[in-house]
């Protein structure tokens, strides 16, 4: 220590930060490598705990999300009906949800027609459900999506570490 002090003492103006730079560069490269090229396509809704799954399928594109939490059913981030009402109803089709979804589907079809795409293909929707949501609500949500022309239903899950 005394030797070091002698070497660097006195001058004071020149702090050697080359080694710190090395460390920083390594961290930077590591972070850049870890960063998903796609970024976060889907943000997890608040007060929603997704189940964990071993599914390795990542989200490719998100056009529309349906979120069912403890209080509301949200289509494209707009609340359409209270979850309690969904539990109480007997019908498989959640009327306000079907209405909202069909409107969205029409918009998508028009957009597909305008751009020369296939307007008859099945729409896809990502459904975010709380892990404690009952199967009843899940089934009604699915049925409503299917009925509104969204045949590709995907459930968002948290990816569990692969073996």
């Amino acid at each position, binding site marked *: 220590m005394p030797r070091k002090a002698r070497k660097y003492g006195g001058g004071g103006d*020149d702090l050697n*930060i*080359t080694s*710190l*730079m090395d460390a*920083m*560069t390594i*961290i*930077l490269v590591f*972070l*850049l490598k*870890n*960063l*998903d090229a796609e*970024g*976060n396509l*889907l943000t*997890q809704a608040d007060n929603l*705990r*997704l*189940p964990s*799954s*071993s*599914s*390795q*399928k*990542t*989200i490719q594109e998100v056009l529309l999300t349906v979120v069912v939490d403890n*209080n509301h059913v949200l289509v494209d981030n707009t609340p359409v009906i209270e979850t309690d009402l969904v539990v109480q109803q007997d019908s498989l089709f959640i009327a306000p949800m079907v209405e909202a979804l069909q409107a969205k589907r029409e918009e998508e079809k028009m957009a597909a027609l305008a751009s020369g795409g296939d307007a008859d293909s099945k729409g896809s929707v*990502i459904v975010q*459900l*709380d*892990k*404690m*949501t*009952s*199967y*009843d609500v*899940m*089934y009604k949500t*699915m049925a409503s999506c*299917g*009925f509104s022309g969204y*045949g*590709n*239903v*995907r*459930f*968002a*899950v*948290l*990816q*569990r*570490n*692969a*073996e």
Partner: protein
Amino acid sequence: MAAKRKKGGIGEAPNLDLLPVMALMTVLIPILLSMASFQKLAVVEINMPERSMMDAGSPPPEVDDQALNLSVAVGKDYLEIWARGGSLPKIFADEIIEYRCQTGDNFRYHPRYQMRYINQEASTGGHKWVQDKSFSGGPAACLDGTPIPETYAKGEKRVAQIEAILMVARSTEGANSEEEVFGDYNRLLRSVYNSSDSAYVDGNLEFFTSLSQIKVGMNVQTLRENSVRKIGSATAANTDDIHSVYEDWRSAYDMLAKELSGIHNRFVEMPDAENIIVFAGDEIPFDKIIQVMDAARESGFANIQLAKLGG
């Protein structure tokens, strides 16, 4: 470059001013850190039946007797496999709920026996769940005694969150009735798991029942295909570290996966060998459905459909 060389002179190292670069790094690193996602999201796909609105009222298509017609029924305390109109013995299971309280306590609660288990090795990341003797029974409660309500009123603050619902398999050996299976605490099965929570099986696809059966140098596998690996004293290629192996309740989903992969291998030439229908009752939580779908997908059933049980 040429100009630089001229300026530097002979024998004099140029003193680069790295401070601005450092400043840039200090900004870049926090930004990248905030952007990085540590919990990756994925999706689970299901197959919706292709029936248009026109025939929504007509009866479903005829069932082909020659096909496999595989389905799994998910109940509150059992899983049952149906194929070709017959069923395999039910896999009976107990629910054990893992809670995390507001105070940060993490414990498991066994509703059937009103028992609480705590993880003795939680601080080191281990899994050693032992019965909490200080808990005197009754409904679930946090470690500080705050009872956990079964349902919450609207806007009510939550006391605890359910982290996971374990389906702990029960042995049906020698039992003649459901009462007998559920009557004996010792029928709850144990298994040995590796660090990524996969159950070990031996060469005959039988589960290990105790940690003492696992020795350094032996060959084990998980329920996945081509998963044979050695047990070593450190992690390496195709070797699992014996220190990361732990014993826990045997999951009924693992038992299901084992049965399903057996069926998949036996009936691989069937036209509907990739199809499976998951049936569940109204009250079954979404988490269980996802776990059953995982077990089915890992066993080779790519086309998963969902249906309602009863009613």
